[in-house]
């Protein structure tokens, strides 16, 4: 089975993207734990794309989140007891797999607020693959059911 959802890469479309995911996972018969992990992964990646993929820079080169606009396409494939979730955008090239992991052993006062999203995705998915092709960021996550 393969299904696609496409929208403007805006935070306010997260609910729609998630409804698309939940609907599809229900059809596939996905368990509660995997369903929540996939939902978290969708949110973290989608929000990142919405904030930064099409963001413009100010005159000194600082990126301003949530500026600019563009599309994001989400494709779900279910086969052989696995779900593949692919995100495609035409924004600035960015490989989230290269991001350093946060130190999750630090005490509460040393922990930084933020930086956890991608880490949670890496920890909960069974495989992740990134490529930049034809001007597109293509990130595919795989979860065994």
């Amino acid at each position, binding site marked *: 089975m393969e299904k696609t959802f496409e929208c403007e890469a805006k*935070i306010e479309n*997260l*609910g729609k993207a998630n409804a698309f995911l939940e609907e599809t996972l229900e059809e596939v018969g996905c368990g*509660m*734990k995997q369903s*929540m992990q996939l*939902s*978290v992964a969708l*949110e*973290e990646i989608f*929000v990142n794309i919405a904030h930064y993929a099409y963001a413009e820079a100010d005159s000194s080169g600082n990126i301003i989140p949530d500026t600019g606009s563009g599309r994001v396409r989400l494709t779900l494939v279910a086969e052989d007891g696995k779900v593949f979730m692919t995100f495609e955008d035409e924004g600035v090239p960015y490989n989230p797999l290269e991001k350093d992991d946060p130190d*999750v*052993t*630090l*005490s*509460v*006062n040393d*922990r930084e*607020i*933020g930086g*956890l*999203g991608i*880490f*949670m995705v890496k*920890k*909960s998915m069974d495989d992740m693959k990134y490529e930049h092709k034809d001007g597109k960021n293509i990130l595919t996550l795989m979860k065994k059911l």
Partner: protein
Amino acid sequence: MLNINILKDGGKAVFALEGRLDTSTAPQLEDAVNKDIAELTDISFDFANLEYISSAGLRVLLSTQKTMNKQGKMVIKNVSEEVLEIFDVTGFSDILTIE
């Protein structure tokens, strides 16, 4: 969607959450907590009806924990297996008090 039920008694408050604590709803919880936090010494979060948490929700818990470490205590109750797994993966099980 997130519903927040707040039970306040002097310096003590219980925030019972129902629904999803995500990018869209985390600011609601942040506002609700920050409105009262200056006068609180004992905060509990009841997660019995919390279905989902993402990093946006974790951020609110971490900043609240940082504040409460200076002025009192904070506990989280009735955490589901799915949410607990997220606390484990992110090391939050070690920095939060989970009952």
